[in-house]
């Protein structure tokens, strides 16, 4: 089975940790958001089949920076997470302003207060 490592970081360390992985030649594989039991982001990277995820827990009012300055193609992942989960992500290189998908409900994947 593939070895996978998950490194817990704080939102403030995201850019520094991402920059380090970029300089080491890692490829961004995916950004994954979960909303249960709380909002959690995982930035997954690969280098020669080594799979690493940076994991952070977010509070409701946390704002995070886009990593598109290091990985320009992160814009699609970040727009999706912003629109579906309502995570505030600043400075996305191509920001669709919550119009990536044609959906009628705002932040449909966000954990609603009554569901908690």
């Amino acid at each position, binding site marked *: 089975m*593939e070895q996978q490592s998950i490194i817990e970081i704080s939102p403030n360390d995201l850019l520094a940790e991402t920059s380090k992985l970029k300089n080491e030649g890692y490829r961004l594989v*995916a950004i994954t958001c979960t909303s249960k039991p709380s909002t959690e982001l995982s930035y997954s990277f690969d280098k020669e089949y080594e799979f690493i995820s940076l994991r952070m827990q977010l509070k409701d009012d946390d704002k995070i920076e886009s990593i598109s300055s290091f990985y320009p*193609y992160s814009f699609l992942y970040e727009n999706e997470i912003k629109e579906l989960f309502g995570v505030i992500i600043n400075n996305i290189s191509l920001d669709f302003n919550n119009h990536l998908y044609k959906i009628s409900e705002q932040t449909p994947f966000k954990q609603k207060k009554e569901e908690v």
Partner: protein
Amino acid sequence: MGNKTVIPFGPQHPVLPEPIHLDLVLEDETVIEAIPSIGYIHRGLERLIEKKDFQQYTFVAERICGICSFMHGMGYCMTIESIMNAQIPERAKYLRTIWAELSRIHSHLLWMGLLADAFGFESLFMHSWRLREQILDIFEQTTGGRVIFSVCDIGGVKKDIDSEMLKKIEEVLTKLEEEAKEISKVFLNDSSVKHRTKGIGVLSKIEAYDLGAVGPMARASGVPFDMRKLGYAAYENLKFEPIIETDGDSYARTSVRIKEIFQSIDLIRQCIHLIPDGEIKVKITGNPNGEHFTRLEQPRGEVVYYAKANGTKFLDRVRVRTPTFANIPAMLQTLKGCDFSDVPILILTIDPCISCTER
């Protein structure tokens, strides 16, 4: 420098089987920028995990895409099996590999037909799809379905393929191999085809890596990764190397996919000769608890499955990162500087699957 013009491309266009929209910024006939817009068929399938239990969700995963249907089901099942530490029988691993590689052949033949149709070579389109029909017939004979098979299950597979049928599959593939060689000559040697693909939409190795390209899109630019080398299913016992080209143009992407058809035929032959007797499924008891990322190689490239389970029969989260989602930035790069008339071919050469992308 000419005037800038913005031309809307899609979401409905003869070359697009599924809807995607691009705002093409042109100077004269040259594209200088392409701004994508997706979201026409977002179905919220990931959220459906809250309504369907982890066993039922296999059927949902299979419906993410009608072309990679089997591999979506397989990716989901592998993720849940990893969380539950379930070891599936060896025979099931080989059966999964056979169906997965058959899916790759039919997907690449489908794409070749669409490409031929895009540059107006209708007889080539029909020959590609005629060959593809033979693979769909194998699906029907082994699973009962031609598009959605519902044979992959958590713990193994639901149906076996007996030795007589395996022999028949090998015979069909031997015949198909010869016929595929004939149409490959046209795709790779015909001057009118090369005129539309050679040197068009070049993506360098550095660009492919820096833009996160995956699958044939990346391998055609010399990026040598193929998730089958991780050794999931029966791949750890099979001999193969990723198919690589270095020119990074539409011709190289065509060449990689054509060679992968023959590679898949070889992998299926290896499976038929190595497949052991035995059970095809283990019983799964209890509910999953934990999380896991799974990566596998679909026809369009690396797909990532993530599941987070809480010990009940309903998972907290399923997330699917599909290959087309990863290839869109690389496609936008190939469009920059291209001739307006080459746009349809360049969009096709990533082999876009929008149903997968939006889920």
